[in-house]
């Protein structure tokens, strides 16, 4: 079931909310938690990757897997709480890694790494396995460290399966949600939380349905053409790469907003996952803002155990590279994800080395100028866009074709009608080899796309983000704002903030309705005869 589907919004959420509060308000908090667990498992089981019949056992395999994963990890966790055993922790972590290894990476290692001609396509990837295994590995490690309080099974099951965060995060830490399950006020309807939760959900829904899905139509054809062997020209390549850069951000941050909003409707505060990542002034800053809960997991359970920065610069850089390579692989079983992770590892190494050099030169890294920040943001954004090309492309060759296009190696082409727009410059551009023609397979969205992209650019770079606008406070209490806001952030801060008023409710109601209509609509893209 998708967050942006009508059955989810109009049936599943209201029914689950109603059941939760009917039970909770009567003092049956354990029953309310059990209800949420059942609802979450229904939500998870509703999804079927293979379109099996209801009677087909394969239809229920992912559901059986997550249930057994919860039970086994809970039992191991209880044992670790009772007896601090390194070997038991090893078994627990190995079981989780084995599950994700078999279901997610078996095909990749057999076919791409070992070059075996083995067909493992029958192994279906259970939805969200990367998320619920990481969450539970963290739980086991913390149980071993003695940082976990003994909890009942039902609370643990809800910590793992709570539907708002189950499919695509945030990767919740047990210390953030389990304590909330023990609070009496969690089970009482709270209209303030409901209003704020709905608002954040609607903002996320609009990011996904209007912005991400809207710009996706300009990204997909360019990547598909490159995959088919076409060599995108300069503007095509840039439009595809930038469109995907914004699509991914608004899609993923929209989904995270929806998760946070849904959690709040149930009086559960989930951690922030995005904090305006494209406003980052360097790659270190980017990873503090992009998929924050994954960065936190990789830092606490991989980078620091590997030694972190404790053994000198070269070991630190090695640890960074290893962490980011594995982080890349976590996103998907393919070489392009490994390259993407490796690139970000390299960026981080360069960034840390640069900071180290500046510190040795006596620079104060906390001070910066406006032009300096603009330059830093531009370089960071450019580096991120280049890496996204590998993240999105199906293979290395397709990514290379797009990158070649982005540096002009595949020529420059614009629609024939643009020739006149360049006025006296047009003949010069012509002489420089620019082509003004409408040819088959030319994927350039033109002015409409440029206007849309400029709007997305403005939203991502200049406007306050969801938590800044609504004042949402994460469970750890940090809203995630920067210590030194930029000029634009100060200007944006002057915009009216979200408040639970009739006007804000009405406006968000219109946005919600528009998104629901978009989810309901089957309208194909407009076909313009005269453009064929």
């Amino acid at each position, binding site marked *: 079931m998708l967050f942006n589907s009508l059955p989810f919004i109009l049936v599943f959420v209201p029914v689950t909310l109603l059941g939760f509060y009917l039970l909770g308000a009567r003092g049956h908090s354990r029953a309310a938690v059990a209800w949420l667990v059942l609802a979450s498992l229904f939500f998870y089981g509703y999804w079927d990757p293979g379109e099996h019949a209801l009677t087909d056992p394969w239809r229920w395999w992912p559901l059986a897997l997550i249930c057994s994963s919860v039970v086994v990890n809970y039992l191991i966790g209880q044992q670790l709480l009772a007896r601090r055993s390194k070997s038991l922790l090893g078994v627990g972590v190995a079981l989780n890694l084995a599950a994700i290894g078999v279901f997610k990476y078996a095909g990749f290692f057999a076919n791409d790494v070992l070059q075996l001609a083995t067909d493992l396509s029958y192994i279906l990837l259970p939805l969200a396995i990367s998320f619920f295994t990481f969450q539970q590995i963290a739980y086991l490690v913390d149980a071993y460290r003695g940082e976990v309080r003994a909890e009942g099974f039902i609370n643990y099951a809800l910590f793992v399966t709570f539907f708002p965060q189950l499919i695509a995060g945030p990767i919740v830490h047990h210390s953030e949600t389990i304590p909330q399950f023990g609070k009496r006020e969690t089970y009482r309807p709270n209209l303030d939380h409901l*209003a704020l939760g709905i608002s954040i959900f609607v903002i996320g829904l609009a990011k996904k349905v209007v912005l991400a899905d809207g710009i996706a139509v300009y990204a997909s054809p360019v990547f598909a053409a490159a995959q088919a062997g076409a060599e995108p020209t300069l503007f095509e390549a840039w439009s595809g790469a930038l469109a995907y850069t914004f699509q991914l951000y608004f899609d993923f941050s929209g989904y995270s907003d929806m998760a946070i909003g849904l959690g709040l409707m149930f009086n559960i505060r989930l951690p922030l996952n995005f904090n305006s990542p494209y406003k980052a002034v360097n790659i270190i800053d980017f990873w503090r803002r992009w998929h924050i809960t994954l960065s936190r997991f990789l830092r606490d359970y991989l980078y620091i155990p590997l030694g972190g920065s404790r053994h000198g610069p070269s070991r630190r850089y090695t640890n960074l590279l290893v962490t980011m390579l594995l982080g890349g692989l976590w996103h998907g079983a393919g070489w392009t994800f490994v390259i993407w992770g490796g690139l970000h590892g390299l960026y981080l190494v360069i960034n840390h080395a640069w900071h180290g050099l500046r510190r040795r030169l006596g620079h104060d890294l906390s001070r910066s100028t406006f032009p300096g920040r603009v330059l830093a943001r531009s370089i960071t954004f450019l580096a991120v866009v280049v890496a996204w090309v590998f993240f999105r492309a199906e293979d290395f060759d397709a990514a290379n074709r797009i990158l070649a296009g982005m540096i002009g190696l595949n020529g420059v082409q614009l629609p024939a009608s643009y020739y006149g727009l360049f006025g006296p410059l047009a003949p010069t551009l012509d002489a420089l080899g620019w082509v003004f023609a409408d040819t088959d397979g030319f994927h350039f969205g033109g002015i409409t796309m440029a206007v849309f992209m400029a709007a997305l650019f403005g939203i991502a770079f200049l406007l306050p983000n969801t938590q800044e606008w609504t004042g949402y406070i994460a469970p750890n209490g940090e809203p995630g704002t920067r210590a030194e806001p930029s000029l634009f952030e100060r200007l944006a801060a002057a915009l009216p903030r979200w408040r*639970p008023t009739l006007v804000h409710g009405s406006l968000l109601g219109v946005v919600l309705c*528009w998104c629901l209509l978009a989810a309901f609509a*089957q*309208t194909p893209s407009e076909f313009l*005869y005269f453009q064929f």
Partner: protein
Amino acid sequence: MSAASKFLIGLLAGVSGLVLGLAVLFLGLDAVGALKAPAFANRLSFDEKLRVLRADPPQNLKALFAGSSTTLHGVDGELLRSELGLDGEVLNLGVQDLRVNQIKFLVDVFLDQFPTVTHVVMVSTLLDYKDCGSVEAKFFQPEDVLDYVSGGWPPEIYYYFRYLDLQGTLKRANQIGHLRTTIHDLESVSFDPYGSLLLDVPRNGVIDRVWDGDPITLDPPCYRSLRALADLLRDQGISFVYVIAPMRPGYLAGRDPDGSLLAEHRTRVRAALAGTDAIVVDAHAALDMPEEAFFDAYHLKRDKAQTLTRYLGEQITTLTAAPERSHPSRAGSALSQAATRAD
């Protein structure tokens, strides 16, 4: 009342207000004749035809003309009906810029709606044989389209929400009335009672790209779709007439100067239809239309479309009445016959 309660009331008001506002907009535009048809395929020529079909469904339909704009603009439904002397109706279901796989899908869907059909005629050019491997055949949702054409529940306004296209609706609001009456615009939807749309577009109303036509690469999946269509019709006992439409000589001189593309196309069509009951009529070869007969690369002017229609009427009458109708090599012999005439 708490602030949160006011917010929630506002939220409900916002949701219902937008639905109500859109309903008023659709009803208002409809009242003044400025509402385009629901965007089932978001192709004006198809969506508007469905609207006409819903308002005036054909009774006892006998001949279905299905194809791209070549069929839509090339066949005069009313004239053909009298030429064929049918005791039932004719429907021109041509849709602009369809590929052969989409035409097959269209016919498949509408035969369920019109079980009385005895003849299917497809008037086609090279352009229909592009990109079948990449263009999705299913260009509309059949259940919704057939429900809409049948009339009844749900009401028409439901489809305006189901196929919401606010931008297109507003953009077309001041054009649709004109497009429903003119025959001088490429985007005209001024269908005759049989669904045909014979046009007379001035040269300055046709952009160069449409006048010269795109380069064409014949796509093998298109011929497989043609075969599938012929098999489907044979299995249902429906007579299938395939027409190679006239093309503008100037266009062919630019795109196919040595005639090899058209020759290859003829061979492939013949191969695709071999062993089926399909009849092939090569109107391009038989009629040898001059440059002035066309208003763009592929489409005949109104009077010449009537010439083509008369010719098709004769051919269909002769060939479908011939005793060797079910002969396995019929596709090949019919093609040879037309080609011989042209020689």
